[in-house]
């Protein structure tokens, strides 16, 4: 059984919601990312989305753009991303890791090589921002054949039949983009997001994670009241900005995530 399914099954029996931090691999440094993954788990992460940096991150706001540029400037490659995951797996056999990024680095490596390397490294799911379902048939099939989940996005603008497509091709969870905008944008209409979630869950038969625009403990708890998971990326990366060494990056990440974890658990308990 895929670690993602196991994790959501466990959380369901515990009556808890998943906290999914997103970090860009190689930001603020490769060494920091290596240290960060276990630190995120210590701070309460149930699943980690690891961003694969790309030169042209079209769906990302300034924070993740900047993190990608910094990571690439330090020579971060897909092969190194796999090294980071492999390293993490030596000490953590349970926490799922989902790679999130864009199509071209995958295509440059070759779909087949990519899927094999991802599986060997201990990756559990892959979210490719610019592979919508209609362009991802073969890639999704390859991932599923290797026991990995293709994760798809759904947006406020998505028509109902898109959820069926995602149900057919995807697995693990659905990533619901909470707003029409780029990552890290400001305006989140919590009520509108919450209204969409039950139907998404029903149509896809998958847990629903909400991301893009979740900024703090309060919004996380509000969304977590209905969603199965919350994803938090840009604000976490902002907290890491300027960390001088891996230890400081870890300390900052824990300080940032702990209150969110708490709010998510308490919010749900209320």
């Amino acid at each position, binding site marked *: 059984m895929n670690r993602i399914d196991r994790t959501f099954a466990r959380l369901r029996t515990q009556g808890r919601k998943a906290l999914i931090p997103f970090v860009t691999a190689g930001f603020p440094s490769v060494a920091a990312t290596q240290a960060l993954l276990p630190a995120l788990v210590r701070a309460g992460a149930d699943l980690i989305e690891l961003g694969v940096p790309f030169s042209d991150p079209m769906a990302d706001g300034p924070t993740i753009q900047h993190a990608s540029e910094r990571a690439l400037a330090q020579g971060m490659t897909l092969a190194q991303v796999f090294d980071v995951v492999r390293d993490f797996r030596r000490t953590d056999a349970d926490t799922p890791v989902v790679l999130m990024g864009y199509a071209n680095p995958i*295509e440059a490596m070759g779909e087949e090589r990519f899927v094999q390397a991802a599986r060997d490294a201990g990756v559990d799911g892959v979210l490719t921002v610019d592979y919508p379902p209609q362009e991802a048939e073969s890639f999704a099939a390859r991932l599923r054949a290797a026991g990995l989940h293709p994760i798809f996005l759904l947006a406020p603008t998505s028509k109902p039949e898109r959820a069926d497509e995602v149900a057919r091709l995807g697995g693990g969870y659905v990533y619901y983009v909470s707003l029409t905008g780029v990552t890290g944008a400001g305006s989140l209409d919590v009520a509108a997001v919450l209204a969409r979630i039950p139907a998404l869950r029903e149509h896809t038969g998958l847990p629903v994670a909400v991301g893009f625009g979740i900024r703090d403990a309060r919004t996380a708890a509000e969304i977590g009241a209905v969603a199965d998971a919350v994803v938090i990326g840009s604000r976490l990366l902002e907290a890491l900005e300027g960390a001088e060494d891996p230890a400081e990056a870890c300390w900052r990440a824990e300080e940032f995530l702990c209150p969110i974890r708490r709010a998510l658990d308490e919010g749900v308990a209320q």
Partner: protein
Amino acid sequence: MEYHYPDARGHFGPYGGVYVAETLVPALEALAQAYEDAKRDASFRAEFDYELEHYVGRPSPIYHAKRWSEVLGGAQIYLKREDLNHTGAHKINNCIGQALLARRMGKPRVIAETGAGQHGVATATVAARYGMRCVVYMGEEDVRRQAANVYRMKLLGAEVVPVSSGSRTLKDALNEAMRDWVTNVHDTFYILGTVAGPHPYPEMVRDFQSVIGKECLWQMPQLVGRQPDYVIACVGGGSNAIGIFYPYLEHESVRLIGVEAAGEGIGTGRHAATLVAGRPGVLHGNRTYLLQDEHGQIRETHSISAGLDYPGVGPEHALLKDLGRAEYVAVTDDEALAAFHALCRYEGIIPALESSHALAYAAKLAPSLPRETVLLVNLSGRGDKDMHTVAERSGIRW
């Protein structure tokens, strides 16, 4: 030749498609549907034609560059004078079409990306013409290189937003325009300037630009009694080239040559010759040839002409290359500049640096061909915007 591209999902063989984040998928579907409806609507086509005639000044003439041909001593060079269009380039053809579509879809705000500024100026122009709000994204580096066009856009009432991410050129402006569109998709129409991007843009922009080639099809027989032997156009994203190539695809005796920017030379790595030196990948919503490193990161490009300084190319050109129906070559900054000066001095026409790439290849080809051979070059824009670049390059201050 059997040629029916793109298919219903926007694929040109293995190229094209809709490689975008989910947020944009419904907007692109709505756009594709609106375009299909408009295409079938006689009143839409009539208004497009009317605007091209009375506002843009079409048809643009074809001119026999006799003196220059004489100097080169071979084939005869004919120029399709897109530089004479209102706003000074072919870009306006597409902008009229998309602005009419935006109005039809009830979108009061238009956005655009621009490199050299020609597409930005054309978009700002049609926005003023139809009373729409307009925001143009332009790389910081291009804002510096093309100051005159920035001022033109502002005069026309557009807001110009300098883009400081990535390489600060056209590709980054396109990223930023996409981000704006994702955020404001409810009231905003993205007027994309070239035959790249996600479906339906490559098809739609091709259709609007193919007025260029359609005119050539009746103009050339009037001028020389037949169709040309070669059609030559510069290729950045490839809209002026597709515009003149597309109606000639079925005329199989006509050789189609796309000229890319070899910058400082292909061997130096400082160039923008995507089809000549790139390999397929996914960027900006479509699968096509790209300039990228071994890890799939997009490379920074270089060309003296901002409009060709782009690491991708329209997916239909990628297909035409693979099919062998069109050939793609590259000329350097220096060769383009030499052709620029030659046209100024022999014909009294100041060409855009982009178009100068097509002229440079024609100048290379002409001397080796008989005098009866006819080369038709798409003179896609005029060079007023390039005064500063050329003067700087020649060490002249003004």
